């Protein structure tokens, strides 16, 4: 292969940078924990090795070890790495600024000159001959934006520019320059040099060949001895570049050393390159360069020009890398949560529909013992959009049982529960989209004055809007009557409603059936995507009440009334055994996930758990009951089924159609007149006929008190 025409300017392939992610992590840690706003220059070490692949050049690499340690010890220097054949150290310096403006304001030419000066001084003092690693240096400027995790950086590999530039006399593969014997000997000598931990990382050396074709590798300081023996002499260096027609960058400063220190005009050099850990003389190059006498180069004061700023795809601009994915804690939390759910899907539940959970919008009415736990369980299942509605403030006794609050939320009269809950959710998982609404729910049996009427109507409207904008509602309040209006509104719009209610030592968790106005959809044509199906089929013919599952009020024979006045003390504080709320909340959320995975969604039939069905489920999540009633004294749980009632004060067709006809006026009437709902639904009539029925046995048989169970 004939080589470059003689007399052409010797062109060097620039070094290319490679920064391991660990370097940026270490720099961030140093900045945050050790340096703070101190922007003094930081000593660093770069690493490179001879080219090891015929088509790919080696880069000058920065790793975490390139920086001083970020632990609490005193060291301000990067660790010294010696004897590693794949990591030849390059001393360097890092200027990391505190602002973007500071980064641009750095006087780059000045910094480059300063580093070049160090090399020049080492050449003249003789240090470069003793410790040739200092012939190469790395200069790095950077700006670490630790809010967005953007790292702007720019490398320079200072090279002393010969003026005029050296010319190339000859350049060819080493195997074509050496004789066969010489080549064998050179390879052996170089391999020995590379395998000894003393010399493996010494990147500049001499190769001398005697008249017997025997090659020896020597340190630079042995130059005079080699010259005296009159043997063939080559100036060798580890060449990271792979190109067949150009030597690598480190040769530049090597030539500067040779010219300034030893005043040689003709330099025969060896670009040492490897393949699979051994010297490769086909890839390695031998060349001859001609150096013109540099004006004043023997004087130390006359510092040559320096070049070496790295181009970015051919342009004179810095580089930028974004590491938010691996450094931003919020991104890491999100990705960990996602992976956790995906792991569940992969290992245990292949039909898990995570997309539905991620996009679901849940409205929680009540942010107390039930609300806090339900919110947490929803987040654990991957639900991100949670709205909490509560008009109360956090009281001193709350943090013990309401798992989103701490003492801080109780101070100064107590924060609003809705706001404190949202704050808490965001602290647990920053990516949650939580909203808190401080509002009271209008309730029947709590009449309002005419002045309050307007604001009550606004609240009703607001509740309606909330229901429109959410997919699922959880009724988690502490009174029966507060559940009435939401139940009616949801029955009207056929959205998933889940109720949890606590007694002292028992609980009820149930899913409301669909509203009265829908046709049971063609189940086979139903796709999994439509949850609130039936909204399109707004036929006024109501379904047969017996097939529709009931709501919370369907079993009641009295309308919701004011249950809060005239209560005894223990009735006023919702006193329950602490274990109940977590159990009921957890079941409520699991029930929701079951509904979401049932092909019929809200229209799903109810299933009852019994011993014979153990383990053999049609659906992977198991059965989908209508109601779960649990009792702590018995450590027992039952699944029940209740159909809707034609006289239900909340969801029967009479009530819902009255609401549709008269809207807010109907609501106001129900709120202000306690018996209105009973009249409308015919309950009043039912009670009257029941009372008028003569019971003969009333006088004769004593009904024991403890056999009467109050609902």
């Amino acid at each position: 292969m004939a080589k470059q025409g003689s007399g052409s300017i010797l062109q060097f392939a620039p070094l290319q940078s490679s920064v391991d992610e660990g370097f940026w992590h270490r720099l961030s840690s140093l900045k945050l924990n050790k340096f703070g706003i101190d922007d003094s220059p930081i000593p660093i070490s770069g690493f490179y090795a001879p080219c090891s692949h015929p088509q790919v050049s080696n880069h000058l690499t920065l790793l975490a070890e390139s920086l001083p340690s970020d632990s609490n010890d005193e060291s301000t220097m990067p660790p010294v790495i010696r004897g590693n054949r794949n990591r030849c150290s390059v001393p360097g310096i890092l200027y990391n600024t505190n602002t973007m403006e500071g980064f641009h304001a750095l006087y780059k030419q000045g910094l480059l000159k300063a580093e070049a000066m160090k090399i020049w001084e080492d050449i003249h003092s003789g240090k470069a001959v003793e410790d040739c690693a200092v012939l190469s240096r790395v200069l790095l400027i950077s700006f670490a934006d630790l809010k967005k995790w953007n790292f702007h950086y720019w490398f320079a590999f200072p090279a002393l520019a010969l003026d005029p530039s050296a010319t190339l006399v000859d350049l060819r593969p080493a195997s074509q320059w050496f004789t066969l014997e010489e080549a064998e000997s050179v390879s052996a000598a170089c391999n020995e040099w590379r395998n000894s931990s003393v010399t493996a990382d010494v990147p500049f050396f001499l190769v001398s060949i005697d008249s017997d074709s025997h090659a020896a590798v020597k340190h630079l300081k042995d130059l005079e001895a080699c010259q005296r023996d009159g043997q063939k002499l080559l100036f060798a260096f580890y060449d990271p570049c792979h190109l067949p027609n150009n030597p690598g960058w480190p040769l530049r400063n090597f030539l500067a050393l040779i010219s300034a220190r030893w005043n040689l005009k003709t330099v025969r050099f060896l670009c040492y390159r490897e393949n699979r850990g051994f010297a490769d003389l086909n890839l390695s190059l031998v060349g001859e360069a001609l150096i013109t006498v540099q004006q004043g180069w023997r004087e130390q004061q006359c510092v040559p020009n320096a070049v070496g700023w790295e181009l970015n795809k051919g342009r004179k601009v810095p580089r930028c890398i974004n590491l938010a994915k691996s450094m931003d804690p919020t991104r890491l939390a999100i990705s960990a949560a996602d992976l956790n759910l995906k792991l569940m899907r992969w290992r245990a539940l292949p039909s898990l529909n995570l997309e539905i959970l991620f996009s679901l919008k849940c409205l929680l009415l009540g942010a107390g013992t039930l609300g806090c736990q339900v919110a947490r369980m929803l987040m654990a299942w991957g639900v991100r959009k949670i709205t909490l509605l509560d008009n109360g403030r956090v009281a001193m006794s709350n943090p013990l049982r309401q798992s989103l609050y701490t003492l801080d939320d109780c101070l100064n009269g107590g924060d609003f529960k809705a706001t404190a809950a949202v704050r808490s959710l965001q602290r647990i998982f920053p990516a949650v989209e939580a909203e808190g609404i401080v509002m009271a729910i209008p309730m029947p049996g709590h009449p309002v004055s005419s002045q309050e009427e307007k604001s009550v109507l606004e609240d009703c409207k607001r509740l309606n809007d909330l229901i429109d904008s959410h997919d699922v509602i959880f009724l988690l309040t502490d009174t029966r009557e507060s559940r009435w209006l939401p139940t009616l509104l949801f029955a009207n719009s056929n959205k998933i409603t889940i109720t949890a209610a606590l007694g002292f030592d028992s609980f009820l968790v149930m899913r409301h059936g669909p509203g009265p106005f829908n046709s049971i959809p063609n189940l086979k044509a139903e796709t999994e995507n439509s949850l609130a199906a039936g909204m399109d089929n707004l036929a006024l013919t109501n379904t047969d009440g017996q097939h529709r599952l009931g709501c919370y009020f369907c079993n009641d024979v009295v309308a919701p009334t004011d249950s809060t006045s005239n209560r005894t003390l223990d009735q006023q504080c919702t006193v329950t055994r602490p274990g109940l709320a977590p159990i009921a909340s957890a079941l409520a959320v699991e029930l929701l996930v079951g509904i979401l995975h049932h092909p019929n969604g809200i229209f799903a039939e109810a299933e009852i758990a019994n011993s014979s069905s153990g383990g053999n489920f049609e659906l992977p999540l198991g059965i989908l009951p209508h109601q779960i009633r649990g009792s702590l004294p018995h450590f027992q749980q039952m699944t029940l089924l209740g159909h809707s009632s034609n006289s239900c004060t909340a969801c029967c067709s009479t009530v819902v159609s009255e609401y549709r006809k008269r809207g807010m006026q109907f609501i106001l009437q129900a709120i202000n007149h306690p018996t209105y709902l009973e009249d409308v639904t015919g309950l009043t009539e039912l009670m009257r006929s029941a009372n008028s029925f003569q019971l003969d046995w009333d006088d004769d048989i004593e009904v024991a008190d403890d056999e009467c169970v109050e609902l």
Partner: protein
Amino acid sequence: MDVLHWDGTLSAKDFRIGAFAFAQKWESCNLAFPPWSWLPCPKHPWLAPPEEEGYLSLEKICISRPNEEEDIDQISQIDTGEEETCCSRNEDVLDDATLVQSNHHELHYCDFHIVYGSTFRVPVLYFCAYCSDGRPLPLDEIEKELPACASKELSKKWTFITQEEHPCLKRPWYKLHPCGTAEWMKLLFLSDTANPKFEVVLELYLLSWFSVVGQVFGLRISLKISN
């Protein structure tokens, strides 16, 4: 230990023995790749590290096929205002002795670490991928590089990629989740009709393990070693 009743797992000490056996066999027979190195990973850096704690490392394996078109524009994030201020100050960036290279083939590399996972008591393969300038590659880009057959492996029960903190380097790396490893390692050895001694099992453990997980990345071990 009776191999018939073995549960497919390894102790930390056995892992180290197995790791060295694996590295030796690899180096002697697998000439296409560089050798594995053992790097220490002390749990408490201020104490003298016990011998056991460490991991196998194989770095800078090129995983991409040379692709001329791939030239992801890294500087798209920088606004043009920055470019102007830089240029005006930069007289001496280039001189006539600097070769200007026109084409930049973007190659992708992968680092592999075999770390002992104490939860499941099996080896775990950690990996990360990056471009030649060090910019890390996200998982979806890595998956594009994996050979076609690997995607079948990925959907099988024992290869699931998660992202977790590397136990020694303390930053996120990808790993093949190890929860199924013990199961199929046990199957691998029990399906062999000869009843091997545990010492033999240990010597071949990592080799057999890697012959499965390595396929995700198209790293094949030559058949010579399997004897």
